[in-house]
């Protein structure tokens, strides 16, 4: 089942842990935003394969609600 993981809050992309083609399981952390000096991990909700990544590590000022990682 396809899943789109969106940013929960504005912030900077502190760590990007996946790339297209990676197999992920529900609960795996895909990327971590740095928001107000705090790490905000974003995890997959379902098992699958990463089909697209729309953010880059170190990217500054991403908005809330943008699709960051797609899982097929």
């Amino acid at each position, binding site marked *: 089942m396809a899943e789109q993981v969106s940013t*929960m*809050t*504005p*912030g*900077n992309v502190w760590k990007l842990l996946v790339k297209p083609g990676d197999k992920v399981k529900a609960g795996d952390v895909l990327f971590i935003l740095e*928001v*107000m*000096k*705090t790490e*905000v991990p974003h995890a997959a909700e379902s098992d699958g394969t990463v089909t697209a990544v729309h953010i880059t590590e170190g990217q*500054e*000022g991403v908005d809330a609600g943008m699709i960051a990682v797609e899982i097929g």
Partner: protein
Amino acid sequence: MKKILIANRGEIACRIIASCRRLGIATVAVHSEADAKALHATLADAAVAIGPAPARQSYLVADTILKAARDSGADAIHPGYGFLAENPDFARRVTGAGLVWIGPTPESIEAMGDKERARAIAQAAGVPVLAGSRRFAVGATEGLEAAAQKVGFPLLVKAAAGGGGIGMRRVDAAEQLAGVVEATQALAAKSFGDGTIYLERLVERARHIEIQVFGFGDGRAVHMFERECSIQRRYQKILEESRAPNLPAAMLAAMAEAAVSLAATQRYRGAGTVEFIVDDDRDDFHFLEMNTRIQVEHPVTEMITGLDLVALQIRLAAGEPLAEIRQDAIEARGHAIEARIYAENPAKNFMPSPGPLTLFRLPPAGPSLRIDTGVREGDSISFHYDPMIAKMIAHGIDRATAIGRLLKALEATRIEGVSTNVAFLKRLVDHAAFRAGDCFTGFIPAHGAELL
């Protein structure tokens, strides 16, 4: 001293401006692009733009801040807390530029910022320190196991360059040691650029008690009593109060004496805080670290002593003798308690909550309620900076009265647009165990279900 540049933002910048105003000193604010209309930039007599929103491109750029000081004709710099406050190189550069640095000497900042040196200095000053090991750099961990056995389990693996709870891991048994050390070293190398770690005795039921000290720079120092800061979440303080409940007066006096001795031995200059960990099971205390800055929770001390710590910092830096600040003249009156209001969502694992402050109504301040904030209704809380948006400090004749007033103030608080921890704070302050003074660093995990 006629004009002070404040190298900070938010509530502490506003609070420093207030003291400057009382002293008749002009102020220069610095601000990032995101903060052009921020309260601190509006309140100061002059404001200088210092770069883009990310702190490392603005509030952390020494060159730009020094240039702002020169261009605006400031003769001194107050760093507040955070940012450049505990950066000895910045302190040196301020002095080197012919400006007055309102803070401790770079030597003190450096010595206390290096945990191993701080420990050694504390030990030499007769201050008890927790059992600990030597340092282990990445790839140089021979003797680690023996050192761990000597410290005893459970123990903490701590990053030498860490702070604020970052880079600290618990180890319960020898077989976990190597893995945890390796992980902590990797994290520390990434976070601080230095993967060196050391081991330290873990106190199971700990209280975090700190002593406010003030040194005159000539080997004399006084204390301004303790602050109980045990109510924390992930090492982030939430409630602070003074005096500390449920601790023997003799222990508090011994801690204050130890803190003064540590300040005196290094000819400490200005405001500083000596943090201790109290073992609730064994009734002993040990030195944790010394913070060479004005702290977030300093208003608690100001409320019970009637002193203005920032004004004292400034007057000392200006060369005043401060003859009225004698230990026997410093008295604690009543009880004060501070709550930190954070833009965060307790229901979503305390996720930070930046956004527009569409409603921001706090109760009126007065003699028994102090409110320190750097934001106002209509402002936008940026994801670039700290989530703390206000501090509320209530005073009363005793602890129960102060708690009652804080609770009332929290109940009168209306904030919309961002999520906050106000409801969480109300449950915390009103919790029977908290009211009973049962403070320890594990309080929030222990009572989590009743607080959320």
